[in-house]
Structure formats: structure tokens, C-alpha cells
């Protein structure tokens, strides 16, 4: 009797668990054409992009959004069974890491090679950049004369003691910038630069890029380094407080006439294990089209990677600039070195 009732109890528990879990299983693999997207972008405009693609091709897009590192960890764990077709992430450093982990398969596409400039894509077609952002210098015109700052090197000038606001060294944008400096000038000079910037800190690194811009406007520091799209977003904002910040800032595209301004990319690659490689290739080619380029860049106030029209009032105000022609994949190669240089320089 006892054994029987115990078995009954176990059966009840098992049934309960099954009932709870049954609806949680994914629908069986559908035969209809789909594209599975793992993306670390999460802008509302991207959704119109996906709808547009589905309308044009009949391929439905399913997506998971998350941080680049976490999505990569998930793809690695899923291994050969991963449903992921395309991995979209921001920053060339992240793309380089995914490439090093052997996640990407090369894509051969004359269209992509023609549309995307060669410094914004992997030489073997493992990944492609679809939009760019510039790392810009911003300053307080009440304290600093226009033209006093023109190069990244100027940030380390001892004239600017106690003036520089910038985020922490673990941030991928700073790692990529320093990686580019290492690629151009070597580790020694990069470390001298980093130490010089640390000596000029107005405060310990903290917050995001927008926080640095606001701190300059509030007068806590005279100089900040931030990505172009954060400033463009403030410029396009309807909020009065944001407009007040913009009115108080001067901006510089650094190293014009020299190496050019450091740019980074949002990019994507097709996964080695992609269940729908053909749909994935079509998606990348779609992203390179004029219409998609405009929408993709618009989503985050970035610049289109291809020569597509810029439909963004803020970016039009800021005007054209010359970008560093260094291949963006070089940042990744120097990323670990850059972190060590920052650590040695005492850049928190």
C-alpha cells in the first residue's frame, strides 16, 4: 500500500512537471524559410528593417538580442546544433573574438565586396561592417579655444591637466582606440599616451559616453572622448536638457589631415554552423543595399558603411570627415595588449 501511494505521488509530481514544461518547448523546426539572428543591436528601427527583408524575400526573421560576449558564449555552447545563422555585433573587437573562436564561415559575394569598403570588412569575408561610428573629441568652448585640440595625441598633452573625462579602460571603444594606436605607433608610444591621458583625468573613469558629454556641459571637465552617435542622439533629441548640453559642446573629428579619425563598426557574419546559409547570405546582401544601409545606420545615428545617402540631420550638421584607413580587424589583434597597457598606466 505504501509503495503504491509513493509511486502515485511520484507519478503526480512527474505529471505536474511535464505539464509545466510541455508548453515551454520550442515549436518543431519549421519547414518555412526562416533566418535566425543573434544580435547585440536592439534598436526599434531594426525591426522595420527586418520586416522589410521579410516582405522582400518571404524569409521570416527570428531573433535573440543580448550582449555580444554572452551571445557568443551561447553559440559556442550550442555547438553544431546552434540555430544561429547570423551574428550581428557592435565593435570590430567583438567580431575579431568571434572570428578567433572559429564561429564564422566565409561569405563570397561580389555585391558585398563592391559595396563595403575593404577596411571595414574581413579580408576573407568572415564578417562585414554595415555602419560606422567615429570616436570624437568634445570640449567646453568656454574653457578651451577652438583648434587647440586636433589629434588624439593632444589628449595626453600636459596643458590639459585635470580636464579629461573618459569612461573606463575595460570599455571596448577605448580598447579598440588604443588597439589602433598600438597598430599605428607601437606599444611604447601607446603606453606613453595612455599614461599622459591618465595624468590629465578630471575624475576617475565612470559612466557611459553620454555621461562624459553631460559632465563637460556641467563644467566638471573640459574635454571628453565619446562616440559620434551619442552626440548625434542628443542633437536629434526633443528634450530641452539635451539641447542645452549640445549648445555647450564643441566637437572635433581628430587627426584630420593625418591618419584620419578612428572609426569602429557594427558588423555581421554568417556562422559556420548556420542551418540556413543561403538565407544568411541574402540577408547580408540586403543589409548592404541603399535602403537597408540608411535604416541600419539611422537606428543608432551611425554612418552607413556603403556609399548610401545619410538621412540624419545631426550627422549632416556634423559634416563629412576623413576616417582612419586602418583595417578594423587590427583593433582586435591588439585588444589584449591594449588592456594590459591600460592596466599598467593605471587607467581604471
Amino acid at each position: 500500500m505504501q509503495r503504491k501511494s509513493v509511486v502515485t505521488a511520484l507519478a503526480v509530481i512527474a505529471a505536474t512537471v511535464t505539464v509545466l514544461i510541455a508548453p515551454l518547448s520550442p515549436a518543431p523546426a519549421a519547414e518555412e524559410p526562416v533566418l535566425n539572428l543573434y544580435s547585440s543591436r536592439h534598436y526599434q528601427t531594426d525591426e522595420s528593417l527586418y520586416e522589410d527583408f521579410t516582405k522582400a524575400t518571404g524569409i521570416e526573421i527570428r531573433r535573440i538580442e543580448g550582449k555580444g560576449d554572452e551571445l557568443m558564449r551561447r553559440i559556442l555552447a550550442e555547438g553544431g546544433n546552434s540555430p544561429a545563422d547570423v551574428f550581428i555585433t557592435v565593435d570590430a573587437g567583438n567580431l575579431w573574438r568571434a572570428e578567433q573562436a572559429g564561429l564564422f564561415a566565409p561569405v563570397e559575394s561580389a555585391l558585398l565586396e563592391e559595396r563595403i569598403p575593404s577596411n571595414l570588412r574581413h579580408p576573407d569575408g568572415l564578417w562585414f561592417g554595415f555602419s560606422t561610428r567615429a570616436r570624437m573629441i568634445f570640449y567646453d568652448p568656454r574653457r578651451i579655444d577652438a583648434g587647440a585640440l586636433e589629434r588624439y595625441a593632444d589628449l595626453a598633452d600636459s596643458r590639459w591637466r585635470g580636464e579629461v573625462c573618459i569612461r573606463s579602460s575595460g570599455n571596448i571603444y577605448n580598447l579598440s582606440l588604443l588597439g589602433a594606436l598600438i597598430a599605428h605607433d607601437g606599444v611604447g608610444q601607446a603606453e606613453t599616451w595612455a599614461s599622459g591621458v591618465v595624468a590629465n583625468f578630471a575624475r576617475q573613469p565612470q559612466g557611459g559616453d553620454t555621461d562624459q558629454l553631460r559632465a563637460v556641459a556641467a563644467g566638471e571637465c573640459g574635454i571628453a572622448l565619446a562616440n559620434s552617435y551619442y552626440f548625434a542622439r542628443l542633437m536629434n533629441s526633443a528634450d530641452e536638457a539635451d539641447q542645452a548640453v549640445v549648445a555647450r559642446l564643441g566637437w572635433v573629428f581628430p587627426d584630420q589631415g593625418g591618419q584620419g579619425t578612428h572609426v569602429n563598426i557594427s558588423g555581421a557574419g554568417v556562422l559556420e554552423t548556420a542551418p540556413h546559409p543561403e538565407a544568411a547570405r541574402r540577408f547580408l546582401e540586403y543589409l548592404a543595399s541603399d535602403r537597408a544601409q540608411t535604416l541600419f545606420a539611422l537606428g543608432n545615428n551611425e554612418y552607413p558603411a556603403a556609399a548610401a545617402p545619410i538621412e540624419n540631420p545631426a550627422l549632416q550638421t556634423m559634416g563629412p570627415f576623413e576616417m582612419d584607413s586602418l583595417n578594423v580587424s587590427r583593433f582586435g589583434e591588439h585588444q589584449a595588449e591594449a588592456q594590459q597597457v591600460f592596466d599598467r598606466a593605471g587607467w581604471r
Partner: protein
Amino acid sequence: MAGTRISPLVVAAVAAAALVAVPVITVAAHLFLPGDGAWSHIASTVLPDYVRNSLLLVIGTGVGVLLLGVPGAWLVATCEFPGRRLFEWALVLPLAVPAYVIAYVYTDFLQVAGPVQTGLRELTGWSARDYWFPPIRSLGGAIAMLSLVLYPYVYLLSRAAFIQQSRSLLEASRSLGCTPWQSFRRVALPMARPALVAGTMLALMETLADFGTVSYFGIPVFTTGIYRAWFSLGDGVAAAKLSAMLLAFVLILLTAERWNRGAMRFHQRGDGDNSRTHVLTGWRAVGATTTCALPFVFGFALPALLLLLMAVDAGDSAFGPRYLTLVGNTLLLAGITALAAAVIALLIAYGNRLSQTPTMRIAHRVAGLGYAIPGSIIAVGVLIPLTALDGALADWLTAQFGRPPGLILTGGLIGLVYAYLARFLVMPLNAFDAGLARITPSMDAASRSLGETAVGTLRRVHVPMLKGSLLTGVLLVFVEVMKELPATMILRPFDFDTLAVQAHNLAADERLSEAATAALAIVAAGLAPVLLLSRQIGRRPAASAAPRGRVRLSSP
């Protein structure tokens, strides 16, 4: 029942506990793999910072939750003053606010470009460099944020303890010449010690596992270090070593608690006397109202108001039907996990009661360890074994039916619910343990001698007596899952977002005012379960014959 034959129920309980512990064990197992060499770099550069900051964070938050939680609980439970009935439940509300949300809000409010400092500069004519203002993005700031949202654990448990204390004992102390203050300090407080310790332990385990607040403030502690080791440096072994140190930290805390309690036993019977001994008037009443108002205002009212202003002013442009889906997904996950947790925790707690074997005891403790492990790490601990199983399952099914079935376990919600269970099972487990402890062995014996089976005893005697504990455990898990972020980010299936994910995506993109809408929705959705929880835990002993749902954090 502890005969020679092992009950299948105990076997099932051990198996369930082992299953729940798999993610934690997976992480710990990385200790024995060869590392990528990141460990020596970490140990020589940042490890001392991790240890010092985590220690300070735990000490600071421990003091903070006690200072915010205990005075309010005592006043509400034993005194009469203006606003008491309001504060009785209002003091619990910060529990509905995720720590990362309150961190976003106060940063925006207090940083150099925020309204407070801008107003200060306009008022005084100072520039931003002319004055000192406490930096919100600091260790002190993190302690303040965590204390403000975690003190309700201490408040809830100590209020329940104060309510249950024998009124006559306190009256005896007064008649022996104690002032009200002395009778609080020398009688009530020592008697409530298990509740204070239990509430503080819950708060501190959450503090140690918190990632959102400390990473937003850029404070190097164990959780941020583990994350960096595993995700940025790609070194699972270094991450496991740090996790093992974090677990050691927790075990030291738990041991300290048991050692502190020693052989003391706390028996007391509430006499159900509802009359409050102290009616406060004049400045005393003002003091009491202020004491209760402070945690409520800064832990809930002000942040909620600021969120509301942001949401109305700017808000999420995607607000609309999508939010119904987000709310639906959030509640679905919380509901499923809470029910599953109740079933499994009941099985384990009951198995532990039936069998006193070391295996069962160890299994019971290991099942609760996940609470101190950060969600992102639990997520990886779930991914590794589950994807392997998925692979094997897919191979087998392909061989059987000829076409690949996709990822059955990690492609749906199963992996996610599994991660939640591994992380939060300790909450219902402790509630049930405490509930079961109140059912004396003689009741079991009576039931069994009257011909009832073990399961029958569970069903007809224990479950009716455990209802309160069950509800408490379920609600605690429900609220936690609603607020959970890191594991949800990593494990959720295609096209499946929750409120926490929506709030995080916008905030991480430095669009705080847009994130306010989702953040406010999390808080709003959490209000009902939190209030229910407050009612459940604060129930007076005389109000019902059923035992109260008290959470006791013994030793998971």
C-alpha cells in the same frame, strides 16, 4: 520510516536536489580543467580589490538593512503612531524594485549633470569644480542602493518575530523596571535574533550575487570579476576559481550564523494579544513616523516618482501592445517557475524530513547553493550540460525520425526555468523547512498509527498545515524571477523578451528615460505579490490555526 528500506520518495528527493545543483556543480567542476593563464593575471592585479570591495559591500549592506529594517518593524509591530497602518505594508514595497533600477534612477538624479547638482549650482552660482558632492557611482552608493531595496527582508522577518513575541514577557520586563527602550534592547531584540539574522542573510546573499548595480557603478567585486573572467577573458577556470571563492564567502557567512546561534533555541508562543503596548504622542510620534517614512520614501516613493516623471516626459516609444506581450512573458516565467519551485522544494524538504541520511542532508544543502551565484554564471552552468544533452537528443531523434528536431531543451523556456530553479530554490526550501519544523514528530506518528501512509500524511496532515509556508515560498520566487535579468538575457528563446530585458536594453544603450517605462512596469507588476507576501508573513498567530509562513534561513 527511517527503516532499512529506503523510501522511493527520498530517492526522488535526492535526485531532484542533485538535478537542481547541476549548474552550480558544472561551474565548480571547471576548477579541475586546465586554465588559459588568466588566473595569475587576476590574482596579481585585481583579486585584492575583489576581496576588499566584496567584504566592504557585505558589511555595509548588512548594517544598512538592519538599520533600515528593524526600527520600522519594531515600531509597526508594537507601537501606535500616525501612519502606522500605512507603513505596515508600505515598508515592504521596495522589494518590488530591482536593485539595478534604483541604481539607474538615483544615478540620473544625483550625478553631476542631474537635477539635484544642477539645481545646487544654479542656486549658489558655483561651478562643478567648486564643491564636493558624494559620488553616487561608488562603493558607498552601491551599499545605499542595495540596502534600500533589500531591507524589506529584514523588515518582514523581524516584524513577524516581534508580532509573535509573547506580550506578557515584554510586560514582565517592564514591570521589573525596564524602560520601553531597555525592554526592546534587552528582551525583544535578543528574542528576535534568528529572524534578524535570517533576513540579513537573505539580503547579503543577494548582495553577493548582485551584478546589475555593481557593474553599473563600475565597482570591482567578485560578481563583476567572474563575469569579466568568463565573458571577456574567456577563461572558465579563472571564473570557477572566483566562484569557488564566492561560495566559500557564503559558507563562512552561514557558518558564522550557526556558530552565533550556537545551542540556543528560541521557543515562544504568541499570545495573540493585538493591543499595542506603546501609544506614541508628541515628538515621539513624529520620530516614529519619520523613522518609518525614510526607508519607504527613499526605497520606493522617490524612485517610483522619478521613474513616473521620466516615463511621462519621454518614455519608451515602443509602449503599446508590445508591453502586453512583455508583461505576459514576465508573468508566465514567474508563474511557471514559482509553481515548479514549490513542487520540487516540497519534495526535497519532505525527503529531508523523512530521511536523516548524510546523502539526503548534503543533497538538501547543495540544492540551495545557487542563490549566491550570479545569474549569468548559473546561465553558463545551465548551458553547458543542457546543450550537450540537446546534442545527444538531436542525434538520437535524427537517427530515429530522419530530421533534426532543433534544440529542445535550450531552444525553449526549459533552460531558463532550470536556471531560475537553480538560483532561487533555496527560498521555498527554507520556507518549507521552517514550516515542516513546526509539525512535531508526534503528529506524524499519530497519523501513521491511524493507518495513513507517508504520502497520505503529507497530503492530509502536512500540506494543510504548510499552506502558509507554501504561499510564502511561491511568492518569494515569483517576485525574484520578475526582477531577474542576467540569466534571462542569456537563455531566453527567439523573439521572447521580458520587462527586465526591455528596461535593460534601453538603459544599457544610455537611454534611461526610455527605459523608465519598462522599469516602472516591473515595479507595478511586483506590487501585488509583494503586498500579498507582506500579509502572509505578517499574519498574526491568533488569526488562523495554520502555522505562519515564516522564512528561516538555516543552512542550505
